[in-house]
């Protein structure tokens, strides 16, 4: 069990936070912030607890906490929603968990220059409920839309289901305020203006501070893009008797040139088989339906209506059959909710057991999708056969590029794990399974993570390999910004930044 911090340390933190109930040391406060929804070694839960939790309200408090942590060499782990899928917010070395949920205000809505400035602890759905009356929205729409928070989206470099149309988190954040690993509060944007979208002054730092998985600092405020609320939304789902026809159609739609295209999604055979277990839209489908493609459009009616006709043509161009209005309507609106239900889990016998959802999130080019699917399913089947507590929930491939749906894909294999049966042996098996899957991605010129982050064991070991020649630069940046290795240490192999060339380590 990770022990609580010494009294004097807790007292000093209390002094920084003021009289608020902002410093939590009791065991449940720490235990409840150990995991994120990704599969978790339940049998070792208490090895992953922070030593103390703080709930700051201001950037100044965050700054003081981080400076304090540097003085005492105590790790800091930033936590927003704790809804990530790659353990970015899981403490590996105890330390101070900085839980930013109380920094959740809307600070400014600028309808003239089209920005909204918020604390990192606000959820996008709740933000958009407030923005609606102004006819605008912040269209960052992941599967976790109802529960993830802006700060976590920035920390993970999130991906949006509407990315082809509106961009992803990194395209939608105009500027931000960050507390560096050494405690300074800095403003990061495009050039010096908070509301500028493009500048070439100095060095462009914004993308560096997006997707760092909490290893380069803590976002304390963000200025976000406001887009006009869509007049019109269109979704259509097509069924196929052959995966390759579906794959072909996916590419056709992705290259269509339709400006209102928000995304194309390809469902593989195992995904259809999985959906037939408990999804009312797929259970009644005839046996010949083995694969599916979905396409969605957002924009003005003048654009979407004609584009929808084109989508219907292209969706059918390789033999796709329209699944109908009701399913297209219902399935698209269900996009946040279908994934994580534990009772999707099945043993090889077909019996229902609650399983934790692992979502692999490789980025792969279009050409690689069919082969990767074969290799991944073969790997998962081997582990199902050996351990019996895993389950193959099939694969999705989503258009990945912001505004550019024709290039690469977020490719997901969903694996269920009967978590309560995990022990050291099955956990090790699980880690190997993850690593094998990730290695396939690299062999096919892909990335081991499009958006979740490579902060989990089984992925993290491959980060230096994937980064290749850029790894040296990554290490230098990490060491420069975080000399004491206190900011989310142990993640993404960044400890290597502190190993001197003769092999002696620090940090």
């Amino acid at each position: 069990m990770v022990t609580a911090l010494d009294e004097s340390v807790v007292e000093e933190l209390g002094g920084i936070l003021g009289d608020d109930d902002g410093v939590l040391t009791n065991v449940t406060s720490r235990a409840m912030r150990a995991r994120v929804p990704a599969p978790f070694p339940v049998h070792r839960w208490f090895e992953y607890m922070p030593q103390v939790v703080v709930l700051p309200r201001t950037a100044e408090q965050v700054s003081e906490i981080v400076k304090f942590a540097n003085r005492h060499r105590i790790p800091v782990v930033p936590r927003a929603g704790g809804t990530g899928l790659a353990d970015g917010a899981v403490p590996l070395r105890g330390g101070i968990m900085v839980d930013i949920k109380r920094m959740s205000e809307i600070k400014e809505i600028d309808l003239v220059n089209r920005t909204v400035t918020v604390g990192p602890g606000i959820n996008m759905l709740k933000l958009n409920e407030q923005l609606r009356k102004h006819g605008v929205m912040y269209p960052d729409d992941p599967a976790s839309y109802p529960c993830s928070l802006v700060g976590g989206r920035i920390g993970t470099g999130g991906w949006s289901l509407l990315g082809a149309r509106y961009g992803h988190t990194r395209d939608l954040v105009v500027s931000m305020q960050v507390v560096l690993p050494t405690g300074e509060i800095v403003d990061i944007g495009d050039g010096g203006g908070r509301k500028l979208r493009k500048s070439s002054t100095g060095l462009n730092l914004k993308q560096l501070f997006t997707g760092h998985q909490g290893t380069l600092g803590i976002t304390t405020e963000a200025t976000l893009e406001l887009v006009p609320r869509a007049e019109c939304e269109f979704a259509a789902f097509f069924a196929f008797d052959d995966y390759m026809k579906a794959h072909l159609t996916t590419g056709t739609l992705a290259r269509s040139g339709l400006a209102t295209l928000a995304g194309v999604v390809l469902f593989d055979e195992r995904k259809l088989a999985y959906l037939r277990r408990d999804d009312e839209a797929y259970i009644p489908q005839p046996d010949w339906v083995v694969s599916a493609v979905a396409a969605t459009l957002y924009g003005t009616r003048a654009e979407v209506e004609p584009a929808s006709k084109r989508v219907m043509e292209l969706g059918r161009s390789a033999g796709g059959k329209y699944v109908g209005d009701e399913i297209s309507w219902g399935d698209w609106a269900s996009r946040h909710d279908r994934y994580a239900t534990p009772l999707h889990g099945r043993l090889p016998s077909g019996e229902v057991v609650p399983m934790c959802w692992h979502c692999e999130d490789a980025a792969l080019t279009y050409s690689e999708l069919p082969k990767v699917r074969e290799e991944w399913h073969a790997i998962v089947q081997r582990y199902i056969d050996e351990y019996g507590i895993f389950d193959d929930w099939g694969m999705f491939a989503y258009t990945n590029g912001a505004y550019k749906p024709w290039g690469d894909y977020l490719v997901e294999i969903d694996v269920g794990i009967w978590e309560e049966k995990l022990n050291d042996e099955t956990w090790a098996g699980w880690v190997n399974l993850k690593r094998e899957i990730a290695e396939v991605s690299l062999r096919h010129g892909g990335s081991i993570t499009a958006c979740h982050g490579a902060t989990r064991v089984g992925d993290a070991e491959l980060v230096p390999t994937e980064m290749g020649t850029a790894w040296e630069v990554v290490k230098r940046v990490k060491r420069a910004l975080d000399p004491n290795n206190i900011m989310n240490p142990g993640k993404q192999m960044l400890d290597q930044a502190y190993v001197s060339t003769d092999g002696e380590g620090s940090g």
Partner: protein
Amino acid sequence: MATKPKSDTRYDPRADGQLQEEFVEKWRDNAYGCFSSGHKFCREVCPVMQVTRNENHSPTAFHANIVAMEQGQVSVEDVADDYVHCTQCGACELRCPNTLFTGDFYRHRTETVKVVRAMRALMVDKGLDRQNWQVWNRLTDELKNEPVLGVGDGQPNGQEHVRDWADGLDIPVGGETIMFVDCEAAFYRTSIPRATAQILQKAGVPFGLMREQWCCGGPAAEMGYVEQSRAFAEHNVADWRAVGAKRIIAIEPHDYIHFTEDYPAYFGESFDFEVIQILELVAELIRDGRLKLERPIDRVVTYHDPCRLNKRKGIYEAPREILRAIPGLTFKDIDHVTQWSYCSGGGGGLPIEKPEIAAEISRQRLGRAAELEVDTLVSACVWSERPLAAAGSDVGIEVLDLIELVAEAAGIEAGGREGA
């Protein structure tokens, strides 16, 4: 890194006796059903979470704590305070995809309200129940009604005064249809039962009152005092049988919950009463022309969906139908799905133990209403109206009950008082 570590005493569940093991065994499926997902769709709809932003008050934590207890890593004492932070509004368990998307398919849904109540019952068994709740329920046991007027000198509490609200209305005792009047309405906001009674009389709906009306027992169940809840339920059902009742009109959402969930659980097949929620009856009376709403009311209103009608029971259309039938009203609606994340903070004993959180929840609710530029917030739950009215007075919005408006539109001078 850190300075000298403290020594932690490991918790041994076996030393704690049977209670905790039985509890964990019983709620294990519920716990893992949530913990294996952990996706926290519940969090942003939870009224307490919207105020405290403390993950320990999330439904996720309520379930995860049980897994932690199973592992012998935390005790009931460690986790008890978390479970105080809940109004039992039901938003979480409804919004959870395990309910909303697959709860019907698997015949297994998220049951956070039951989990919270079960933990609170365990706390009572172990002597860990909260001080203010102890006092409240002890007083309820003494008075046979909740001490909604406080227990200062001369407060007209208790059974001798439980029918005072009905003075001058000539309502019989007994009969096939009984109108059950909850404690807050009977003692604190008596305009509501008076309005309801006179509406039913005007529409020609026969009904009577109980001989001895005790508290429904619901609040006791919500705060963990299961034996007391059951005892009160037995008394009330005995009274209903004694007067030949077949139908019970529940004028208050909390009662509707208890009579349709707890009472059937206590009594099984022998619970053969028909339970009617007043708004459905009133909507029917208006629809059938038996109640005419002819006096216009010049107000700009918005409607507060009571949690125990909207989220817990799916009753959201009848009140809107009623509001649209009241002449003269300008009705600015917020849809009932958006209102899954709204609450008054009044339920689950929260105002008794955490009044500052309950007050902030109401303040935020009135903030939403104020954005619509209304002069009136209409609710249909008397327990919500006290905290909402307190917050309303800060922003110049009056809080009324839907039944009060209906009575006014029907030309009824309800009478009654608020408070002692």
